[in-house]
């Protein structure tokens, strides 16, 4: 086992044990923090597929996070208010079933990512960053100006959605659900990056000219990665909505796009567990430093600066001593 694999296992185990210990010692607040780190880590792992493995610096992934969140919020509030989701062309009821909500969130995020990716990927570099930001802002303002779903005030989910007979309102149970999905997505991302597609994606990032001359269009490979990445982030968004039992346009804001990028860079770009470490650090700093000062983002900024300047492989690069990834 490489040092990175060991580190990944340690991080995954630590997250689990922290939540377990907190749950056993009756500190639900801490369990919720661990759940937040898990869900944000899941979103970061999704973004990493595009950003780390594909080299696509998307500054608009909050759109997919928010779409996942709104999918959960809209479906749940329709069910909880006993209103149909829509009446035409077919009458569609809402639902509080988590699997259906997850599926809806993933599909919705993917469907929106398809045109956004197809248009954005015609550009590159800074233009790509700006155009993904612009699309996310369009979604953001769309949500704000749509009063049916709360507009600026957002949308409350009175009771957490359901998964079989589980008590999803229990912090520990909801942590386990989130953790299981994190492992699932992490496994899928690992698999994809080691598959035939993963090779093509690595080539699309490192040498698109060579990929073309092998007979594969880099555009198709990148668009696939962008859409898959958005789907994972959409799933995280649905979980995040359930965690907070609240959805608002904040989930769609560009700050969140930035935070997702921070997770990836902090942990290590293109490292499977990097974003999880980044998200966990972020949540930790936010809660610990946030207790001391409301300007907790200043030390975070300094840490981020140090990582970018002195640890180009992020925390994982620092620990394993390897800067690059393949």
């Amino acid at each position, binding site marked *: 086992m490489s040092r990175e694999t060991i580190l990944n296992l340690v991080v995954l185990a630590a997250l689990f044990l922290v939540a377990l210990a907190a749950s056993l010692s009756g500190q639900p607040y801490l369990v919720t923090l661990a759940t937040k780190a898990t869900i944000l880590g899941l979103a970061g792992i999704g973004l990493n597929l595009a950003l780390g493995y594909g080299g696509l610096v998307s500054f608009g992934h909050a759109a997919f996070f928010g779409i996942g969140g709104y999918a959960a919020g809209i479906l749940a509030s329709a069910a909880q208010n006993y209103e149909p989701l829509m009446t035409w062309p077919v009458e569609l009821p809402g639902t509080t079933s988590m699997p259906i909500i997850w599926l809806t969130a993933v599909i919705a995020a993917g469907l929106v990512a398809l045109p956004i990716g197809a248009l954005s990927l015609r550009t590159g570099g800074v233009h790509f960053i700006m155009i993904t930001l612009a699309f996310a802002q369009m979604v953001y303002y769309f949500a704000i100006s749509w009063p049916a779903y709360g507009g600026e005030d957002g949308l409350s989910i009175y009771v957490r959605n359901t998964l079989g007979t589980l008590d999803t309102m229990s912090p520990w149970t909801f942590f386990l659900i989130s953790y299981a999905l994190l492992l699932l997505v992490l496994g899928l991302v690992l*698999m994809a990056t*080691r598959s035939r*597609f993963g090779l093509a994606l690595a080539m699309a990032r490192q040498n698109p000219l060579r990929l073309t*001359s092998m007979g594969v269009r880099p555009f198709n490979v990148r668009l696939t990665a962008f859409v898959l990445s958005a789907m994972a982030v959409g799933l995280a968004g649905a979980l995040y909505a359930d965690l907070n039992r609240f959805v608002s346009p904040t989930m769609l804001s560009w700050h969140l796009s930035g935070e997702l990028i921070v997770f990836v860079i902090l942990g290590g770009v293109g490292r499977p567990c990097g974003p999880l470490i980044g998200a966990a650090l972020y949540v930790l700093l936010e809660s610990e430093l946030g207790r001391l000062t409301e300007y907790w983002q200043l030390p975070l900024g300094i840490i981020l600066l140090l990582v970018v300047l002195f640890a180009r492989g992020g925390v994982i690069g620092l620990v394993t001593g390897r800067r690059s990834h393949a």
Partner: protein
Amino acid sequence: MPDPILKIIGLEKSFGALKATNGVTLDLYPGEIHALIGPNGAGKSTLIKQIVGEIRQDTGTIAFEGQSIDHLDAADRARIGLARTFQVSQVAPELSALKNVMLAVEAREGRVFRFFRPVNRDLGLTDAAMAFLYDAGLGERATVRAGDLSHGERRQLEFAIALAMKPKVFLMDEPMAGLSPDGSKRMTAFLDKLRATAPILLVEHDMEAVFALADRISVLVYGQVIATGTVAEIRANPEVRTAYLGDEAA
């Protein structure tokens, strides 16, 4: 005589006022090495780029196996059998040599969008790629990151990738560039054997290699082919000697 596999007719390409390609007509027959020589800035690389579809010609036609490929983009042209090697080796520096070639194999098979099976355990893929690495003389270095290979080894990797595409035509942009005299000799021997696999359109500055390898030579000057012929014909052509070969070949 068989039909040419590649036929270029009246190709023109301008960049602003500069006519980089000015009515080039050229063909490539099965089994031959057709060398394209000419002074710097004659438009050799521009011509290669038009053939592979990286840039589009203004007028004229490129036909492959008797059919126009003008409407095909670079990826399509690679897939129907045009394999290109670059003047500056183009590889994925962070991937191992083996994985670079594996990707070429899966691209040729048309099986790139497979997401589940790890490539490391795909023995069909790794074995095929290994064989091409050995063919290019790089088998012992399969696990080395492409970025850590020497200049000459990266060139060999380029050839392993080109071989893995099982192309019908090789288009080579200065394969000898930057090689040691010894490396050039080995490359010459390698290309000599390669012509049995597929014909080669060879852009090259190394005259010794060109005269040793070429079945035919075309001379490109200011975007125009001023002469095409066998090695002996080109060496004897007075126009070529003044334009390009100078005293060296006299």
